[in-house]
């Protein structure tokens, strides 16, 4: 928590925000809404981490084709996050294993964490928001 003292000009307290994405990309609105919230949060210069766990790992899959279900494919938008200075993307190892996915199946670079590492990362956060 030592870097909690970072202050820009006195007005900006920087908090550690974690956005936890647990649901498949389509079928519910959670994934898309979560992504929009993340993009908006980026405007406030906060310390943002994104975590993908459970079916949430499917959000990052390469080669998603939504034509058949007639909804927008927003998976490409995850590649824009770097431009928003959101570079901390984590996925849960067990969730990836359970779904037969590896880092090569994902559309962006991520850090793969074990359950213990994920728990530690979560414990460091000021705010955890789950979608």
């Amino acid at each position, binding site marked *: 928590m030592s870097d909690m003292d970072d202050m820009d000009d006195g007005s900006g307290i920087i908090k550690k925000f974690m956005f936890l994405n647990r649901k498949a990309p389509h079928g519910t609105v959670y994934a898309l809404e979560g992504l929009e919230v993340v993009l908006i949060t*980026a405007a406030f210069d906060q310390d943002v981490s994104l975590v993908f766990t459970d079916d949430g790992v499917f959000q990052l899959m390469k080669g998603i084709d939504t034509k058949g279900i007639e909804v927008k494919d927003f998976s*490409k938008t995850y590649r824009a996050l770097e431009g928003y200075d959101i570079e901390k993307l984590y996925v849960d190892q067990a969730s990836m294993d359970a779904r037969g996915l590896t880092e090569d199946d994902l559309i962006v670079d991520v850090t793969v964490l074990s359950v213990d590492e994920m728990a530690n990362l979560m414990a460091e956060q000021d705010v955890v928001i789950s979608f």
Partner: protein
Amino acid sequence: MPMVNIAGKEVEVDEEGYLVDLSQWNEDIAKYMAVEEKVDLTDSHWEVVNFLREYYAEYQIAPAVRVLTKAIGKKLGPEKGNNKYLYELFPYGPAKQACKIAGLPKPTGCI
């Protein structure tokens, strides 16, 4: 949502005048939107508008102004990737105005 007639074609826009279906976009629509925004389109404006369309095709979002500025700097050079240059072209906000002219939705994270 309101319909407007642009160069003989009916197009749907949202309550703020942004094009609803971006596949309908063409240069006539860009010119119409520019008049609405009181912007005289020059080659410099078109450069930004075309950049935004490419950005949208790649990432499926309209970038926030800060992100747009940085991305333009990378692609077109620092003399264009700065607020002064972009606000001179689009005085009411480069992301907002240029996105409208480019037929994109209002930028996400635009506050």
